[in-house]
């Protein structure tokens, strides 16, 4: 059972005499780990396996598929290939991902982490707290905050939100932002919401860079940009890769912020998760909705594998 070759545990000496201790530990280990892995297997991998099963059926909440779901083979997936709204949702998700996560959160997070490095403590504390509040408040609350912030517009019967009050104060035209610029609105809102995570990750990565390196380069006449380009960025590239993958994975399952902000019915801002939800619970096509959620999971799984490759942790 036991493999002796890869054993590099300096603390315990492994000799045949304490073999029974190892067996005892293995048993304790299995008892300790079993409950957690059982729950994960049933309630996390369960829905994933279920998704595979029902995406091959015509399961629905009403009609024929409700009483006895029929095996329909690849029909759901074929339907996806001919579904213009699916591709529209796919485009929306991709734009949202690139705009709000990869560009918005990651770039702004990196910029904030760099700029905040040598500032006064109190200033850093206050600024950091404001940015982090945006990140820790619940999704629904963030959605309500942004719908109030973007409210109003020239034709609106509602009172103007703060953004329209501000542009009016500068003599600029007011807009019904969520109708006129739906994609830009949700991208900015999600950038606002998620930047703290990237900022914290980059701040801790930057702390690991010895200041002497940057000083030496500065004395040698390297410009600010050259120092960033040739010293800072290469040294934190592991953190950058980690950050990009993690925020991508987080953004893939985003639903609430955009749903609360737009009500879910607007094609211009219909993410794949929202489309999946509408197919399953407004049009009652559980089988088709599951096929879409399975695709989201597969994309996530590929990215997660990539993430582990990039991380190359020592275990």
């Amino acid at each position, binding site marked *: 059972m036991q493999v002796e070759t890869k054993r590099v545990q300096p603390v315990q000496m492994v000799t045949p005499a304490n073999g029974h201790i190892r067996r005892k530990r293995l048993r304790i280990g299995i008892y300790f780990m079993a409950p957690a892995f059982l729950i994960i297997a049933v309630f996390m991998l369960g829905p994933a396996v279920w998704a595979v099963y029902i995406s091959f059926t015509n399961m629905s909440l009403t009609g024929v598929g409700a009483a006895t779901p029929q095996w329909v083979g690849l029909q759901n997936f074929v339907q996806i290939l001919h579904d213009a709204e699916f591709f529209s949702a796919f485009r929306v998700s991709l734009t949202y991902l690139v705009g709000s996560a990869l560009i918005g959160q990651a770039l702004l997070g990196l910029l904030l982490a760099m700029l905040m490095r040598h500032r006064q403590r109190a200033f850093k504390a206050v600024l950091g707290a404001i940015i982090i509040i945006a990140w820790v408040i619940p999704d629904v609350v963030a959605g309500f905050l942004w719908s109030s912030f973007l409210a109003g517009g020239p034709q609106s019967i509602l009172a103007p939100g703060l953004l329209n009050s501000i542009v009016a104060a500068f003599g600029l035209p007011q807009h019904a932002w969520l109708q006129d610029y739906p994609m830009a609105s949700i991208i900015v809102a999600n950038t606002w919401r998620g930047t703290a995570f990237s900022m914290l990750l980059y701040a801790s990565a930057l702390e690991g860079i010895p200041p002497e390196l940057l000083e030496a380069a500065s004395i040698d006449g390297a410009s600010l940009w050259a120092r960033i380009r040739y010293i800072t960025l290469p040294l934190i590239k592991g953190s950058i890769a980690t950050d990009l993958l993690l925020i991508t*994975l987080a953004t893939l399952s985003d639903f609430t912020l955009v749903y609360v902000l737009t009500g879910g019915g607007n094609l211009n801002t219909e993410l794949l*998760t929202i489309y999946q939800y509408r197919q399953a619970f407004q049009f009652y096509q559980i089988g088709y909705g599951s096929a879409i*959620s399975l695709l989201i999971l597969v994309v996530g799984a590929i990215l997660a594998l990539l993430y582990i490759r990039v991380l190359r942790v020592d275990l």
Partner: protein
Amino acid sequence: MAIRRGLTSTLAYVILVFLGLFFLVPLLWPVLASLNPSASLSVTVPAHFSLINFQTIITNGLVAGPFGNSLILAISTMLLVIILAGLAAYPLSRYQFPLKGPLMYAILFTSSLPILALVTPLYAMYASLNLIDTLQGVILFFVASALPFCIWLMKNFFDSVPFELEEAAWIDGASTFQSLMYILFPLAAPGIAVVGVWSFLVAWTNFFVPLIILQSQNLLPASVHIYTFFGSYGQVNYGQLAAYALLYALPAVVLYTVVSRFFVRGVSGGLKG
């Protein structure tokens, strides 16, 4: 040189102040509107400050039920995750055994899957298991989706407590259980707190899962209740909405603040392996 450094520093402050305003400005409305008895969507300083909005939503029963449900979801999730992740992380941190490496990779892999997007198949599965419209169904899914990351975090925190301390306790006659209770858990307390807060917040803030799984009005947590209550009314009382949103967001902010010192270290350290 000194002048240039001063200039860069000033420029940095200017940019940071602008970025700070971008993050601050959307937060103004709920604070001012919640204190304003006649609030609208506009940001105005109330003519007179009043806590009437908070008083109203608390006394007319808008808060107690949904917040109670949210607490049940969050505390059950937290306790289960701490116990299950703590147990699972112990052998992963302390023992060597076959397939440990692949197991850790599997945990890391599952922790980063977009599992919360799987509500449609979850609904179908729960329909077969009779877990639709039950709090325990929601809790079990929260626990399962938080566990992989929390096991990973917990293992990293356990790793930072030297094994020698436990061995010393064993030599002095302590049992495995005693060494866990008196050596490992106290020393890994910050880590346990981080895992607890993380899992609490997973359950406290989630909207999508209870939206799908729960149907009875009296089971809805605050996240769904605030949406259905204020989202479906024609005439929204904005002051009350703002007060509700603030009350609902408060535990998240407070809990994060309590553990923030360990949180960043634990999470970013954990993420970097």
